[in-house]
């Protein structure tokens, strides 16, 4: 189906969300809680766009809106811009000192109002990407707990999690760098738990936790995999490529 976005037509697939279609075509829709490969979460609300369906105009969040034949989309307008600014203002109230949010505010020309800014240190915007990543990985160690203003990301009962493998996927996906992870002296501390780190068998640098490695090997159904870090894996892959394609060019 053909979908008109900001005046141009794009070929959309049935079942696709507006965000997926826009991403495929390099159309920029601002977002905080969307990540390729994850389904849309609809939490941050920044990806709001205007959809015109016949005579009806509506505001939808593009990361969860399934595209439909005949719709026309405006990714920006005065109204949408005003709302995005307000959303950024609200996030700035919550995390006034966070670099990422501060830059976003600067980009959109949103200025801080000190009277209503959070006085305590806060970096999490509750986008839920970390929870989704943990869930996708199959570990389910963290979750969004409580509701309303007390909502937060945590392990069950704020205890040391039995299920966490210290892989750091949550840190990887966090847009605001809100999750504390420290790697020191061969130990990794995350979510109130300390893990022993494993060294790469090639370069000798610490690169992952024992639990994470074991989890990966279990998933692969093997135990004789070499312990190689991401960097060395790339390096060895590229030399293998070089070898196999040597005679082609």
């Amino acid at each position, binding site marked *: 189906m053909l979908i008109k976005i900001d005046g141009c037509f794009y070929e959309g697939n049935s079942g696709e969300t507006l965000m997926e279609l826009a991403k495929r075509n390099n159309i920029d829709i601002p977002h905080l809680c969307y990540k390729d490969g994850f389904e849309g979460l*609809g939490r*941050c609300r920044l990806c709001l766009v205007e959809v015109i369906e016949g005579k009806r105009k509506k505001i*939808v969040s593009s990361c969860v809106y399934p595209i439909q034949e005949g719709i026309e989309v405006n990714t920006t307008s005065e109204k949408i811009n005003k709302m995005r600014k307000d959303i950024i203002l609200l996030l700035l109230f919550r995390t006034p000192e966070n670099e990422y949010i501060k830059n976003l505010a600067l980009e959109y020309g949103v200025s801080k109002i000190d009277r209503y800014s959070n006085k305590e240190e806060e970096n999490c915007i509750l986008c839920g990407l970390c929870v989704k990543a943990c869930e996708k990985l199959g570990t389910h160690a963290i979750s969004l707990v409580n*509701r*309303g203003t007390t909502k937060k990301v945590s392990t069950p009962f704020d205890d040391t999690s039995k299920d966490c493998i210290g892989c750091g996927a949550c840190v990887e996906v966090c847009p605001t760098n809100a999750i504390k992870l420290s790697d020191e002296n061969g130990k990794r501390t995350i979510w109130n738990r300390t893990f022993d780190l494993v060294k790469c068998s090639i370069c000798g640098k610490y690169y992952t936790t024992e639990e994470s490695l074991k989890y990966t090997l279990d998933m692969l159904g093997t135990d004789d995999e070499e312990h190689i870090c991401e960097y060395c894996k790339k390096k060895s892959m590229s030399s293998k490529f070089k070898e196999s394609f040597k005679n082609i060019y």
Partner: protein
Amino acid sequence: MSEIGTKRRILICCGTGCLANNSYEVYERLRNGLKGRDDISVQPEIKATGCNGLCEKGPVVKIYPDGISYFKVAPKDVDEIIEKTILRNEVINRLLYFDTNQKKKITNHIDASFYKHQHKIALRNIGEVDPLETDDYIKRDGFKALHKVLLEMTPEEVIDEVEKSGLRGRGGAGFPTGTKWKSCYKFDNFPKYVVCNGDEGDPGAFMDRSIMEGDPNTIIEGMIICGYAISSHKGFLYIRDEYELARKNMQLAIDKARSLGYLGKDILGSGFEFDLEIVRGGGAFVCGESSALMASIEGNVGEPRAKYIRSVEKGLWDQPTVLNNVETWANIPPIILNGANWFKEIGSEKNSGTKVFSLVGKVKNTGLVEIPMGTKLSELVFDIGGGIIKDRPFKAVQTGGPSGGCIPKKHMDIPLDFDSLSNIGSMMGSGGVIVMDDTTCMVEIARYYMEFLSEESCGKCTTCREGINTMLKILTNITLGKGQLEDIDLLEQLGETIKIASLCALGKTAPNPVMTTLRFFRDEYIEHIVNKRCPAGVCKNLTTYYIDKDVCIGCGICAKKCPVNAITGNNKEPHVIDVGKCTVCGNCFAICPKMAVKVGGASAYAY
């Protein structure tokens, strides 16, 4: 009066309100007191019923066929009732209800102003049947509609009848029930589910609880009818766990209905199969939102989802689902039995039928009231509610729970229907009506609702979670006397965005209490911010009391009521309040028979 042929029935209200006032003891004492008495020729039938609506005046005891209704009956009154009313057919004047509008005692409750304007459909059986006796329900045309549907009608005819009746969902949004059923019917994806939303959570609203407690069978019947219409074989009732009696009565009614062949396989020999299951809600307000409710039934966190794909297509476990509110289900059997045209005759255009309101706040008669849609708000407050307590000046009415808005005096003649209420920025919601007088501070009301919602928002989306939290901070500042005029602009700016940008209806309607009070009571906000004065005398930081010496008669009542001895004065001479000692408790303001105690601002040390 002769008792031959007309067996007496004594109905004792055992709804939650009356139970809290010992109505079960009244019931037990009546039973025991009448047992084995040979001076009574025909033993009366004694029944514990559901809620009669006028909970404030409970426990309620009704005696048929005499048509005598006693209010505020205590266990110690039972012997007198037996001796005088049962044995000698005397009416006990003391226990009769005093109608403040008619200014007289009323023998039969149906003649009281509170009841005589009502038209009961959803509440038709409550207070008249023992909710645990399925036979009582059957005697009052119960399960007749089910017979008709299963044995005489096709699913299409059932849907058509509901659609033609114009019934709109009583849960708040007012979506046409027939249209919902029809869309679900069209999806050929099985299994399908029927869900009853019994997660009533609006402060002050209790009609759904009363129906579940007092007439569970009508909900069961309504749900089976829908199951037949959309080809579903399984229904869920989501009932909040705080409603213990409702859950218990529903469960007993379901078990009884199953044993009588109204639930299970081959219902009434029609070959149709349907069963019901109760799911206990964990007490999150947001779980009254349909998609959060379904997530909760599935065992997930009760968070709403974007409803670009409606639950009639992908609802519970992504299967087609019809979800209706308790009151909506209670309307289904009478519609089927009496026909769509009968229902359409009641109420107003596009808003057929009746609506149950829970009338609470500063009004003389509080309780559950079922009236035709389109009845004027003033009729509800003054004719049925009897007006404001102590006849103080009327200020506003808050409708629709936390998501609703405040309606000022100038809109008192608004018809109570879905469209009229949302046109002025409020909403029907579940039907909560909170009446406010001049001692209610509108800024504080808005702050109260924001506080409620800041705790009860699921916290999923930014605009609802952070937006409500910021609005709460701003309003708290204003009530503490730290407000600035720019704050009003910020409230309006955020309110507009929250309304449009939030994910679910809770967020989209959350700014309503703030927006409507700003629209109709902006002066009060400005008074708080600029003059640092709370006109209602509610915000303590912004209130001082003083006595108007031209009005004060020196009766001294205020001085006696003052907990800190801040009021002095000679007998029959104007009294004075020592602002330094005063704790602004408001006792003097409330008690003064001449309304001589006045509200001053934070710094207005007027004497």
